[in-house]
C-alpha cells in the first residue's frame, strides 16, 4: 500500500437541470483516497454525497452535468474518457455497492449469472470458468450453499443475502476502488453489521480503497479511517475519523454527532418549554394483551407462517412500550393486532378495562379514535392528491361536518402541535420532505385525540438528524398530551432513546422484557446482546 491516492477528486462541481430550475448539487469538492483505506462521506439527503459517488462512477443521472473539476482513478482522468472507455473501467477498476438490495438485482436472471456476466466482460473468462468463479465469489462473501444459491433468482434470497451478492459483484474483478452508496440503510441493524464486516474483510484481503457514502455518522465512526462531512454540496469538515468525532469543529458536524442515535444511550427528555400534564397515578395498565396468536396461511402450499405465537404484554399509561426485533420477528403483526387492523386468531386484548378484541361493527368503529397508528413510510401513507389541510382533518370528518373556516383553524392548530408552520397547509405530500411528511402523519393521528399511538417504525425511513427531531417531537407530545406509545423498531439505538419498557421479539415470541435500563444494561439473552452489539458507533462510545 502506497500513499499515492487511487482516487483523486479535484474541485468537482455538478449541477442538475438548466435555466431557472438549475440546482448546484456539488460545489467544489476535493477528495483523496489511498489504497486499502476507507473514506466515509457523511451528510443528510440533499447534501450532494450520492452525486459525488455517481461522479466517481461516471454515472451521473439524466439532467446532471459536471460543470468543473476532475475525477482521477488510478491515474486515469475519468472526465476525459468517452462513454465506451468508461464502460471498460466500471466494474473492472471501480466497483459499486448500491443502496437498496431489493431492487438492485435483475429479477429475471439467476444470481450466479449476474456475477458471471461481469467476469466475462472484464476478465475474458469463458462461460464455464466465469460460472464456477461466481460460485467461489458467493462463498467468499459468506453465502452458505453457494452452488444452490447461484442457480436461484433474487426473490428467493433475503435482503441481507442479496446485499452480499451485490458486494460480490462489486469485488468480482478485484477493483482498485469500491464505491458503496448507503450500502446498509435498507437493512436491519444486525444484518447491517454482518454486511459491513464482509466489506471490511474484502477490503483487507484485496487492499481495496472504499468510498463509503452514509447518512449515519455512527456507521462512519465504526468503519472509516477518514471522514468527510458534506452539507449543501460542500465539504464542511474532514479528517481522521477519530478526530472528527471526538472534536468536531464545524457546527453542522456537531449537530450530526448529537443526532446519531448510535452515539447516545440516554433516553430523550421533553424540552424545557414543554408543559407536561400531571401524571395519572392510576395503576391499571392502559392496554393488556394475553396469548395473541396470528398464523398466515402459506401461499401456494409453502406452509403456514407462524407470525406471532402467543404474545402477552401490558402497556402502562403514559409510558413508551417498545417492541424491538428483526424483520419477520412478528413485531409489526403484534402491533397491527393491537390496533385491530388485522384480527388475531386467538387471544384477548383489553383497552382501559374493556375487551377490545371482542368488539365489532359500530362499537369498534367508535373505539378506533382511541388508538391511532403512524406507519413507517410517511409519503406512502398519505394520499398524494390531498392537501395537508385535508389530510390532517380527514379523521374528524367521520365525526360530523365542519365549516371551511373551522377546518382550516383546526388544521393549523394540529400542524402547530407538530411544529409545522401554517404555510404547509396547502402543500401536497410530494412537496414535503420525509421528516415533514411524518410530522403530518403524526398530526393526523393526533386529530381525534387518541390515548394510544401505535408507532410502527416511524423513523426508519428518515435520515438520522431528522430521526432525532421526530423522536424529540414524539417525546414532547407525550408529555403535553399524556399519550401512551407502542413503539415498534428494529433499531435498538432508536428504541433506547424513547422507551420506558422494552420487549424483544424473535420468531413470533417475546424472548425478553423489562424496564428499558434493565434490558439494555443487563440483557438476559444472547439474542438481545446480539442486537445491542449491532448498534453502530460502539467504536466511539465504548
Amino acid at each position, binding site marked *: 500500500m502506497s500513499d499515492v491516492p487511487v482516487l483523486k477528486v479535484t474541485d468537482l462541481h455538478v449541477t442538475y437541470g438548466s435555466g431557472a430550475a438549475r440546482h448546484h448539487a456539488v460545489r467544489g469538492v476535493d477528495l483523496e483516497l489511498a489504497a486499502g483505506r476507507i473514506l466515509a462521506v457523511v451528510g443528510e439527503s440533499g447534501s450532494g454525497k450520492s452525486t459525488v459517488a455517481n461522479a466517481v462512477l461516471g454515472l451521473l443521472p439524466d439532467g446532471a452535468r459536471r460543470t468543473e473539476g476532475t475525477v482521477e482513478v488510478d491515474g486515469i482522468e475519468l472526465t476525459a474518457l468517452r462513454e465506451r472507455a468508461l464502460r471498460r473501467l466500471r466494474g473492472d477498476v471501480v466497483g459499486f455497492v448500491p443502496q437498496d438490495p431489493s431492487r438492485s438485482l435483475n429479477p429475471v436472471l439467476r444470481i450466479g449469472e449476474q456475477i458471471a456476466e461481469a467476469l466475462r466482460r472484464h476478465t475474458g473468462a469463458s462461460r464455464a470458468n466465469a460460472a464456477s468463479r461466481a460460485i467461489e465469489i458467493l462463498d467468499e462473501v459468506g453465502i452458505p450453499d453457494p452452488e444452490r444459491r447461484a442457480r436461484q433468482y433474487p426473490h428467493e434470497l433475503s435482503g441481507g443475502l442479496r446485499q452480499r451478492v451485490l458486494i460480490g459483484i462489486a469485488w468480482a474483478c478485484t477493483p482498485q476502488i469500491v464505491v458503496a452508496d448507503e450500502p446498509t440503510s435498507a437493512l436491519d441493524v444486525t444484518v447491517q453489521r454482518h454486511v459491513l464486516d464482509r466489506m471490511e474483510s474484502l477490503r483487507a484481503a484485496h487492499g481495496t480503497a472504499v468510498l463509503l457514502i452514509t447518512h449515519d455518522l455512527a456507521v462512519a465512526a465504526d468503519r472509516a479511517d477518514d471522514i468527510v462531512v458534506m452539507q449543501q454540496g460542500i465539504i464542511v469538515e474532514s479528517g481522521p475519523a477519530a478526530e472528527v468525532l471526538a472534536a468536531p469543529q464545524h457546527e453542522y458536524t456537531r449537530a450530526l454527532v448529537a443526532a446519531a442515535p448510535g452515539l447516545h444511550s440516554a433516553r430523550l427528555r421533553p424540552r424545557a418549554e414543554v408543559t407536561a400534564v400531571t401524571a395519572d397515578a392510576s395503576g391499571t395498565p392502559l392496554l393488556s394483551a394475553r396469548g395473541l396468536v396470528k398464523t398466515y396461511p402459506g401461499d401456494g402450499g*409453502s406452509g403456514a407462517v407462524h407470525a406471532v405465537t402467543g404474545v402477552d404484554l401490558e402497556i402502562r399509561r403514559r409510558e413508551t412500550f417498545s417492541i424491538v426485533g428483526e424483520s419477520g420477528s412478528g413485531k409489526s403483526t403484534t402491533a397491527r393486532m393491537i390496533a385491530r387492523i388485522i384480527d388475531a386468531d386467538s387471544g384477548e386484548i383489553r383497552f382501559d378495562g374493556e375487551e377490545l378484541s371482542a368488539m365489532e361493527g359500530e362499537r369498534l368503529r367508535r373505539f378506533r379514535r382511541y388508538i391511532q397508528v403512524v406507519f413507517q413510510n410517511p409519503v406512502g401513507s398519505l394520499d398524494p392528491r390531498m392537501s395537508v389541510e385535508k389530510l390532517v382533518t380527514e379523521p374528524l370528518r367521520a365525526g360530523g361536518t365542519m365549516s371551511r373556516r373551522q377546518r382550516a383553524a383546526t388544521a393549523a392548530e394540529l400542524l402547530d402541535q407538530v411544529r409545522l408552520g401554517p404555510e404547509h397547509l396547502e402543500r401536497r405530500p410530494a412537496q414535503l420532505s420525509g421528516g415533514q411528511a411524518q410530522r403530518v402523519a403524526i398530526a393526523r393521528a393526533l386529530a381525534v385525540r387518541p390515548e394510544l399511538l401505535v408507532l410502527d417504525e416511524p423513523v426508519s425511513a428518515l435520515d438520522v438528524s431528522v430521526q432525532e427531531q421526530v423522536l424529540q417531537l414524539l417525546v414532547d407530545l407525550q408529555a403535553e398530551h399524556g399519550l401512551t406509545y407502542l413503539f415498534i423498531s428494529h433499531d435498538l439505538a432508536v428504541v433506547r432513546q424513547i422507551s420506558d419498557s422494552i420487549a424483544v421479539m424473535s420468531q413470533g415470541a417475546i424472548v425478553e422484557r423489562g424496564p428499558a435500563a434493565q434490558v439494555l444494561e443487563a440483557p438476559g439473552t444472547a439474542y438481545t446482546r446480539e442486537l445491542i452489539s449491532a448498534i453502530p458507533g460502539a467504536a466511539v462510545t465504548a
Partner: protein
Amino acid sequence: MRFVAPKVLQALFVVWATYTVTFLLIHALPGDPVLAALAVRAGDAATTDPEVLDALRAQYGLDGSVLHQYVTHFLALFRGDLGVSMATGYEVSDMVARALPKTAAVAALALALGFAGALSFTIAAYLARPHWLRSTISQIPPLGIAIPAFLTGVVLISVFSFQLGWFPASGANGFSSIVLPAITLSLPTGAVFYQVFSAAVFEAGDAGFVRTAQAKGLSQPVVIGRHILRNAVLPAITIIGIQIGYLAGGTAVVETVFSRDGIGRITVDAVLARDINVVTGVVMVVAVIYAVTTMIVDLLYGVLDPRIRTRVAAKPRARATTPAGGADA
C-alpha cells in the same frame, strides 16, 4: 397442474359467457329470424307459408323452445358444428375455415410488424438525447392509432400499387397480397404495443438493477437486451393476447378496402343479411381464439417470470439461516 387448471377453466368460462350473451342478444331482437332473413333476401316475395317456415326453422336449427336451442347449439359447438348459413346455405364451419387462414396470415404479419416497429421506436426513444428528441420520437407511434385504417389503406394502395406497382391492390393471392393489408393493420397494433412497451422499458430503465448493470461496466447492448428488455417484455406479452383477439375480429375494414375474403367480410355480410347462425359462429370462433391466446400468454408468463414460477412450483420460501441473512426481506 395446479397452475394450468384454473387458466383452462377461465378460458372455458369466457367462451361460455360469450355464447350466452350473444345468444341472448340475438334472441332479444324483435321478429322471427328466419322470416327476417327471408325478407332481406327476397323482399316482399318472401314466403309466409307456416309449413315452409317451420321446415326452414328445423333446417337452420331454430326450432323448439329457446332453452332447447340454447342447450343444443352450445353442445354442437364442441363438435365444431356451427349450423348452416341462411343466406348461402353453406355450413358455417366451412365458411369460417375457408376465411380464417386468409385473415390469420394478415393478422400474423401485422402483429410481427407492429411488435418490431414498437420495439424499434421504444429503443430509439430510450436512447434519444436530448430530451426534446426523445419527446418527439415518443409522439410518433400514437399516430398509428389516430389515423383510421381505411385512410392508411387507400394511401398505401395509391402509392405502392398504382404508382410503384410493387404490391397488388386487392385480392388474396400469395404473400405479396398480404403485405399492404398487414401494414395497414400493424399501425394501430404497433401503437398499442408501443404504449405498453415504452412505459415498461422506461420503468425498467430507471430500476436499480439497471444501475447495477451499468456499474458492472456491461456494454450498452447487453444492458438494454438482457437487463431492460428481458424485464420490459413481461407486461408487453399480456397485450399480445388482447391484440390477437382484436386482430381476429377487427379486420373488417381492411378486408373491405383491399377486397379480400376473410373473417371480417363474412361478418359484415352476415350482419347485413340477418344471417344469425353465421354471426354467432364468427363470434364464437373469435371468442375461442381470444380465450386460447390469453390462456397461452398466461401460461407463458409463468415460464418467463421466475417469481411466478417459484410460486407455481410451491417450493417453501427460501429462508436464510445465517445470522446475517436472518431477515426475510
